[in-house]
């Protein structure tokens, strides 16, 4: 009897101890998508002005926000305040711009027009309705007083972001 007990204890002591770490992964895909609808083009109505306004010969850039889940994101749009590339400038240009709600996929999104929050060259709005919203962005550059912009290609970049609330 005693021998049997010792044998059982020895057997238990011989069992190895196992441990495992099991990873758990998950992916989160944004339920808010930003799409470039229309590329912008600067028009040059006068030698000292660049403008995306259609009246000035430009083309207004349009950005579309597609929101699958309402009230979880806000749109942040930043119109440019500097050229990303341009000829050498001897004077400092003055930048202005605006963001407006263009088209909507739901009538309730029309309320975004009065809910836009603007500071500096940034415009933000909470996307409280699921669907698509088109934002029209304008950009204008005034280059000094009676000073012509140097000939060449000018590029500027606007930013559109979907930020989780």
């Amino acid at each position, binding site marked *: 009897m005693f021998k049997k007990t010792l044998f059982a204890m020895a057997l238990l002591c011989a069992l190895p101890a196992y441990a495992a770490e099991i990873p758990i992964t998950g992916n989160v895909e944004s339920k808010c998508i930003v799409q470039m609808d229309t590329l912008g083009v600067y028009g040059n109505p006068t030698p000292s002005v660049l403008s995306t306004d259609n009246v000035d010969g430009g083309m207004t850039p349009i950005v579309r926000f597609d929101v699958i889940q309402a009230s979880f994101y806000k749109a942040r749009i930043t119109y440019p305040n500097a050229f990303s590339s341009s000829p050498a400038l001897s004077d400092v240009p003055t930048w202005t711009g605006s963001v407006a709600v263009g*088209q909507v996929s*739901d*009538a309730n*999104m*029309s309320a975004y027009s*009065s809910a836009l929050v603007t500071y500096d060259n940034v415009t933000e709005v909470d996307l409280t309705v699921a*669907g*698509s919203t*088109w934002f029209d962005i304008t950009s204008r550059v005034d280059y000094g007083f009676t000073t012509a912009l140097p000939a060449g290609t000018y590029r500027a970049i606007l930013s559109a972001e979907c930020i989780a609330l």
Partner: protein
Amino acid sequence: MLLAYSSYSYSDTVYGSTSNAASAGYAWVMTNILPQQAGLTVGNVVYRYTAVKNTDDDMVVHIQNDNARDEGYIFRSSDDWSGLPGNTINKIVPADNVDISYWGDGSIQVDGFGTVEDASVRYTYQYDPCFDPQSRPDCPGYIAPVDYSLEALVYEEDQQYIQDELDRKKTLQNEEEQEEANRKAMLAKKRRESDERLEVLLGIVNTDELSQEQLIKHGQLTAMNMLSSSYYTAIPGGTYQETIKLIDGKLPDSKKGLRVNLATQILHQKMVDLQYDN
């Protein structure tokens, strides 16, 4: 290694989008908008318009289609702009692939104050071009139709043949009837002449009662051999044997009858074969 090969035929589904249904006004007839294809279904309604209104006004815009097979609407999307500033709306509304037969006339209806401008309404659709297998020869299950024009041609030929045959038979029958009528007329004429001669002959026994003129007439007839000698010649008694015999003892088939029989057989065979033409 197991190699498997399969071959099957199928038809590709056609996807498309209509033109702007609201281009000519805010009411439209769907038969002028959707392709009239059997089995066509509408997947989405894509519309855009600009609502022009005062922010404080109430305004509801309906994009809708009547239910062509029942009362009410088969599609209706409403945008409530009440208390909101006007704007341009751009919307895609799923239509659950409803069959074309349900899509009645469409319209844009505005309730409240405000107007709709620059409206665009388009329908996305899909259909199987072989929904009806008979629509195209390359569709699975297509059955080639019988060429009725060719059948009509054959039928006309047969009809002409039958008519010719009937005309020929009728002509033949008329000729035979005419011959029979001529033969009967000839026999009747001979019988009348014979009767007249018989009357004259029988009158001989009463010669005494005949006038001189009649006697002269009788003499003339006798001289002209107009009267059969059997009328006044004693016929010896006895048995008269049959003297007319068929020399070779064989009666040949009528070639005319064979031709008619053969033509009838050919016509019958053609009519039977027509049942098995593809």
